[in-house]
């Protein structure tokens, strides 16, 4: 295709320009999964980036209609495997809301502790992978080292490292032990100086700042039009967090801030996530202090759940944004429809508009700062 009008890279005079289509993915080290982006390029500038999804479509919503409520629990961990606890929380919360099951407070506090540990481990993977995309290999190793500490803690109580299936309808299936509580406190003490070290090593690094400050500006209005949530919208200045907007579990009783940075560039989204890790440590500490004794499972939860007919929603703040489960039931053991509102789909939908006219490397920095997990989009 010959384009004759001057384009953003029109340093070479009035020679007719040619654009080409560059295929990024589906196998690519920087697309965080199987995402294909058809980029119409003018030299090094992206004219149009069209994401093509569906390469990891695993029929999660169809499986909801083929499994009982309890049989669907392992699926919930695999939608966004990096914040598996929060996704299970969303599904379990929707069923508990519909069946009017009251969860005992000890279980709620343990859910909060494990969800926030999961959030930190998810942000650590994002941080390591993002820096890997930008060209720095070292932070990945530091991040995975810290993450292994979290995984040891969670493996001690759930038995799994990545795809936990810890929450049940009415609470948890297993109480935490002394080792977990001690380990969680030690982890908080270990992680705070590590975050300081990451700030000195990476956040204040001149190369990172030049790569991220001013790159990929996303306005709050753009976020609103596309339904973007999570660190993407908080990095554009809107302090929207489901834990404060629609409080669930025991977040009302915990004291934490919502970091929001108004610039809207990749650096703002980066700082939001770094600050969120610090806030999660704060939440874990408070939850450990306030952890009451008692049972971890509600009494008289029916073995086979049948929800009354109607539709029910439950939203949680996952590591990537607002995750909502919408259950439609027709009074059978199997749901009639399970709709998963995932944050990455809305977050990625603004990539096409936000990446127009950017350099390719900057577009990848933008993509990394949006924090994509592709099975979250394709479900």
């Amino acid at each position, binding site marked *: 295709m010959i384009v004759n009008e001057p384009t953003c890279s029109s340093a070479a005079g009035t020679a007719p320009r040619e654009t080409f289509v560059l295929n990024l993915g589906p196998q690519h080290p920087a697309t965080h999964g199987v995402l294909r982006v058809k980029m119409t390029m003018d030299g090094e500038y992206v004219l149009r980036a069209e994401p093509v999804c569906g390469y990891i479509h695993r029929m999660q919503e169809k499986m909801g209609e083929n499994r009982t409520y309890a049989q669907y629990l392992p699926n919930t961990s695999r939608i966004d495997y990096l914040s598996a606890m929060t996704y299970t929380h969303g599904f379990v919360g929707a069923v508990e809301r519909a069946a009017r099951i009251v969860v005992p407070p000890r279980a709620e506090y343990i859910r909060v502790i494990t969800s926030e540990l999961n959030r930190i481990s998810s942000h650590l993977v994002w941080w390591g992978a993002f820096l890997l995309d930008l060209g720095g290999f070292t932070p990945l190793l530091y991040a995975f080292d810290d993450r292994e500490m979290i995984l040891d803690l969670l493996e001690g109580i759930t038995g799994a490292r990545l795809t936990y299936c810890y929450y049940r309808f009415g609470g948890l299936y297993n109480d935490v032990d002394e080792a977990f509580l001690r380990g969680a406190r030690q982890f908080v003490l270990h992680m705070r100086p590590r975050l300081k070290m990451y700030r000195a090593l990476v*956040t204040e690094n001149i190369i990172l*700042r030049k790569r991220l400050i001013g790159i990929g500006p996303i306005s709050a*209005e753009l976020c609103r039009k596309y339904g973007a949530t999570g660190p993407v919208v908080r990095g554009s200045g809107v302090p929207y967090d489901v834990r404060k907007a629609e409080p669930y579990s025991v977040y009302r009783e915990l004291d934490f801030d919502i970091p929001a940075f108004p610039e809207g560039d990749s650096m703002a989204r980066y700082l939001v996530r770094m600050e969120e890790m610090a806030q999660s440590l704060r939440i874990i500490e408070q939850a450990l202090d306030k952890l009451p004794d008692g049972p971890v499972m509600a009494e008289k939860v029916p073995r086979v759940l049948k929800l009354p007919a109607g539709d029910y929603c439950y939203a949680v703040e996952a590591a990537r944004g607002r995750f909502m489960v919408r259950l439609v039931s027709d009074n059978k053991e199997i749901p009639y429809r399970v709709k998963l509102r995932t944050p990455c789909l809305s977050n990625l939908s603004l990539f096409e508009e936000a990446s127009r006219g950017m350099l390719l490397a900057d577009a990848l920095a933008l993509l990394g700062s949006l924090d994509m997990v592709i099975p979250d989009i394709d479900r």
Partner: protein
Amino acid sequence: MAHGEAGVRAGRAMTRRVMNGKDANPEIPEKEGPLTPGLPNATPSGVGQQAGPALEPRPDPLARLPLPFQAVDYGLKGYHLEAAVQPDQVVSAAQHLDREGFSLDTITGVDWLAQGQMEVVYDYFHPSRGLRAVVRTRIPRENPEIPTLSQVFPGANWHERETHDFFGIRFLGHPDLSPFLLPEDADYHPLRKDFEA
């Protein structure tokens, strides 16, 4: 000055400003004004400021809109307001909610095979008021068509493509209704209740 030292100093100063609740970079003017003029808590906050407690929805907050919104028990259903409209009213409903500052959460379909209808459900959330609104409509199952929302909310583009993939609902006026999650040559709609693999 050593190479990069100015940058490190600027970075540390920026972090200090932000941690004290001020603007990160005072020279650059704020890009956006308040999100929805006239509504409380519309200005962004930096780190260090306590975000307020969750705003309780005011009684009947969308009463002035010409839409049949009804209050719903949030503790049971998970949303505050619900409206059942005709299929040709969904675009004007979206425009009203857009003007109120709502954001599009998701669009989905439900296949009511027994009743011969498909239900299209539009979920909305408000970024600063903490409200959740649901607009639902029903269309006949044999020829499911409904106007598109993508001119009002560009985010609806992908949600409608996905709903078309799964149910075969045609969104009139949609710029590109090609398969989104299914293979490019897919001609089946898997979430229909009469779908055979």
